[in-house]
């Protein structure tokens, strides 16, 4: 068996068996399960939770319409026409018999006025519902005073007709854009997270081998270049395995949860029919290319440290690029045509995230995407060539290593002629 494959499968299998892999995968799958079943879970916790609100109606006319409105809205607020004084209501709230109380009055114009009192006002839903109900009642009263019919009122409240039409051929419609935004956001996050997570894994792996000094035997049996790329691709394979497991379990949960919940909650937000294969294809390409670029850089950096503790410090500058790319992309979600976004999409360290955003959000000519990918591949090749050299020298270097000078030292060590 070629030594490259030996390194690749060793890296892959050792990582696959490791506790950290099993735990992160299990947690992610649990999260997916939670997400898929979110509506059921939320219902479960809120089932018995009925807010008891005492209403002290000083106007003597508002309680009945308010109760009618609230009943129409939802079933979680229980209104009680309270006959006692405010003081006794307050005592009951403080003792926990009531959740809150509401004082209703009418002002000089005959409109309702209300004061809501509870232990804390951190809870927003109940007062918001009450306010909304009173607003409706107020609208009714006002309309009545003006002598308007119900049909006339409905007309006043109906929303304005506002349509956006994209003139450019192939540009996304408003609906498509909203859908795209969700998918692009999710995929962006996946790319960002995977590049950061798996890239980090590479740097730590290299540094561990160096720190345990097993490196010198390794590089005496297999060339550093084969070793570096065996490792990088082994971890890439691990990443793909992890995503496969997560997607598979997500799919199974969706099927298992049945037709009652599939259209509810977060899942209904994603209309999978709108997800184009093209976009998924680009996501895979940019994930792989982005990973390769950062993994090469991080393997190179990992080869320069002597102790595992120094890794974080050394990879921070590299990680900042991917974090910056992510922030540019977040800005680009609402302004995909901004100049900075366009410019950033051609900078190879930003391309995997920012160019993907542009492809997902706006209709860019094929050559722009192509150019970005070409630049990205080009810089991967350059990084791989330089990285392999630095790696070759770096793995033999021990001592304090925290500066850029080490790159130079490592390169000199690896040089044929010096």
């Amino acid at each position, binding site marked *: 068996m070629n030594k490259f494959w030996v390194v690749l499968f*060793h890296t892959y299998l050792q990582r696959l068996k490791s506790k950290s892999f099993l735990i992160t995968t299990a947690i992610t799958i649990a999260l997916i399960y939670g997400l898929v079943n979110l509506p059921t879970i939320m219902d479960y916790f809120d089932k018995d939770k009925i807010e008891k609100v005492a209403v002290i109606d000083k106007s003597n006319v508002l309680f009945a319409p308010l109760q009618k409105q609230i009943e129409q809205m939802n079933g979680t607020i229980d209104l009680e026409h309270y006959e006692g004084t405010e003081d006794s209501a307050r005592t009951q709230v403080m003792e926990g018999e009531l959740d809150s109380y509401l004082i209703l009055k009418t002002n000089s114009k005959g409109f309702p006025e209300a004061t809501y009192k509870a232990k804390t006002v951190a809870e927003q839903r109940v007062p918001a519902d009450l306010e909304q109900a009173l607003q409706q009642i107020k609208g009714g009263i006002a309309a009545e005073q003006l002598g308007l019919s119900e049909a006339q009122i409905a007309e006043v409240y109906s929303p304005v007709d506002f349509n956006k039409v994209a003139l450019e051929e192939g540009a996304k419609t408003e609906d498509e854009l909203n859908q795209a935004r969700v998918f692009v956001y999710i995929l962006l996050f996946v790319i960002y997270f995977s590049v950061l997570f798996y890239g980090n894994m590479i740097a730590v792996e290299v540094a561990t081998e160096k720190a345990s000094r097993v490196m*010198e035997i390794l590089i005496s049996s297999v060339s550093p270049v084969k070793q570096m790329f065996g490792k990088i691709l082994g971890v890439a394979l691990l990443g793909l395995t992890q995503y496969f497991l997560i997607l598979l379990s997500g799919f199974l949960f969706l099927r298992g949860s049945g037709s009652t919940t599939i259209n509810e909650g977060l899942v209904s937000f994603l209309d999978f029919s709108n997800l184009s294969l093209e976009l998924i294809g680009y996501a895979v390409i940019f994930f792989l290319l982005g990973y390769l670029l950062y993994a090469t850089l991080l393997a190179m950096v990992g080869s320069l440290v002597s102790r595992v503790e120094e890794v974080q410090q050394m990879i921070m500058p590299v990680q900042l690029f991917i974090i910056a790319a992510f922030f540019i992309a977040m800005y680009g979600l609402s302004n995909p045509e901004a100049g900075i976004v366009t410019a950033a999409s051609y900078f190879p360290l930003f391309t995997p995230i920012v160019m993907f955003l542009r492809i997902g959000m706006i209709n860019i000519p094929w050559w722009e995407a192509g150019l970005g990918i070409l630049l990205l591949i080009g810089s991967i090749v350059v990084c791989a060539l330089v990285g392999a050299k630095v790696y070759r*020298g770096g793995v033999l270097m021990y001592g304090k290593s925290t500066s850029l000078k080490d790159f130079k030292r490592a390169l000199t060590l690896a040089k044929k002629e*010096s």
Partner: protein
Amino acid sequence: MALDIKDVTKRFGAFTAVDHLNLTVPEKEIFGLLGANGAGKTTTFRMLLGLIDQTEGQISWKGEKINYDTSHLIGYLPEERGLYPKLTVKDQLLYLGRLRGMKKTEIIQEMENWLTRFKVPEYKNKKVEELSKGNQQKIQFIAAVIHNPQLLILDEPFSGLDPVNVELLKEAVVDLKEKGTTILFSSHRMEHVEELCEHLCILHKGKPVVAGSLKEVKRSFGKKNVFIDAEFDLSFLSEVEGVVKFKRTARGAIIQINDESVSQRLFQQLSGKGFVRKFELEEPSLNDIFIEKVGASYE
């Protein structure tokens, strides 16, 4: 000649680690590379293995350049020992053996043999971090020889081992040589070199200061030692012409002389002075040679 190092120089910037080194290591022999710390031994080994490239000169094994295509022929025990602490002995050797081009069944077979030989068969499924340092070193040694290399490079193989294990490892080294392995090793311990090596080279600041077969080296050194065990004061002998060093011992003296003939003069001087229990002319020890060649320029 099997291993040929021709006029090899390695410079790191302004610093010359190895300076015009010429070495030939005969096949199926044990060759000792000696030198103080920083003399260039590890750098030489690293160049031999192709881990770093020499600035000038050629290195070849049986006429061929050493590179990753020949790595299955070569075994290496680095001075800085290192194994994966979290892997079991078995997984470790499987991985390292595969990287030397072996098949799984061969590795298991060889591993069992070696573990039994080193009297530690029960360590097969233990993690390396659970083993003592000496036992880790045995595993490290197995990793270097498991693929039956033609050329074995051992950098300080016996450091940090107790005397029993040193013997165990020495026997293994001699056995390997007998089976036809060419062995190149470095050490600070002169008695090990004297015991094992036919040929040797002493490096000093990257330059070879002494090289050749053990016998030649000793002969050409010229100086010899005379041990005298006598019941009277021998200090007057230090005045004799040709005496280089005089050292009193509990029962007599050790006298270093610059030529064999001086011993005759010493012998004559002793006659009639009293009772001499022992008069012995000895080859210089490698230790003497090393200290003289390398130590002198330390002062």
